[in-house]
C-alpha cells in the first residue's frame, strides 16, 4: 500500500512559504531615519508625565499636611475664640484679613 503523500506535501509547502519569508529582508531604512530623535522625544515626554504623575500622587499628602498645620496653629491658640489671640498666633500678616472678617469692612 502506498503511504499517504499529503502530510509530507503540506510540510514541503510550509517550508516553501517560510523560505520565501526568509528570502525577504524587511526594509527598515525609513523607520531608522531619525529614530533616535523620536525615541528621545518619547523618553522626555515620559519623564515629564512621570513628574506630573508624582506631583498628583503627592497632592493628598500636602493637603493632609496643610490640615495638620492648621490644626496645630489652632491648638497653639489654646482653643481660644478670642480674635486677638488668633491674630497674635498668625502674626501681623493675617491681622488685617481677620479684622476685616470679624468686624466687617464698614
Amino acid at each position: 500500500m502506498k503511504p499517504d503523500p499529503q502530510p509530507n506535501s503540506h510540510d514541503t509547502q510550509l517550508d516553501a512559504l517560510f523560505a520565501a519569508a526568509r528570502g525577504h529582508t524587511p526594509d527598515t531604512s525609513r523607520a531608522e531615519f531619525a529614530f533616535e530623535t523620536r525615541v528621545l522625544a518619547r523618553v522626555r515626554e515620559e519623564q515629564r508625565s512621570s513628574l506630573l504623575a508624582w506631583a498628583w500622587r503627592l497632592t493628598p499628602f500636602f493637603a493632609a499636611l496643610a490640615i495638620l498645620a492648621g490644626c496645630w496653629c489652632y491648638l497653639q491658640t489654646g482653643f481660644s475664640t478670642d480674635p486677638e489671640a488668633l491674630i497674635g498666633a498668625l502674626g501681623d500678616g493675617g491681622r488685617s484679613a481677620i479684622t476685616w472678617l470679624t468686624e466687617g469692612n464698614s
Partner: protein
Amino acid sequence: MSEAAPTDETLVRETLAGDERSFATLVARHKGRVLGTCARFARDGQQLDDLGQEVFLRAWRKLRSFRGDAPFEHWLARLTVTACYDFLRRERRHREQVSLDDMVLEMRDASADATVAARRARELLAWAMRQLGAEDQLILTLLEIEERSVRDIASTTGWSESNVKVRAFRARARLKEILTRSHEA
C-alpha cells in the same frame, strides 16, 4: 589617534548618570537589529516605528535592572522579543479577517512572475500566521523565519529548550491545518 568607541556598558552607566546622548548612541547602535526583528511582526511602517520605540522605551525604563552579566545586546534582544510578544497579543484582539480567495488562486498560477509569487507567498504566510495565537506566531517567526537556534529562543523567551521544541511543533501543526483549510475552502 582616534578614541575607541565606548562600550555598551559604559554608555549604560552614563545614561543612568543622566546623559541622554549616551542613550541616543545606544539606540543608534542597536536600532538596526531591533527594527529588523520588529519588522517581522509589524504590518506597516507605522506599526514598525511604534514597536521599535516601545522596545527602546522599555529599555530606558528598565536600564537599572541591567546588571552586565550578559552583553547588552542579549538583554535588549530579550526585551525586543517580549515587546513583540505583547504586540502580537494586542494585535490578535483586534485582528482583521482578510479573504484569501484571490491570493490562493494566484499562488496556484504557474505562470506567475517569481517575484510576485514570492510576495504572494509571504502574504499568504502572514495571513495564516495572523490566525495563530501570539505564542505560536512568535515561536515560528523566531525559529523558521529568523532561523534562531532553540537555545537562543529559550534564553530570550525564558522557556525551556524542550518547551520551545514542543511549542514549535504544535504551532507548525496548527499552521499547516490553517493552510489546508484555506485550500479546501
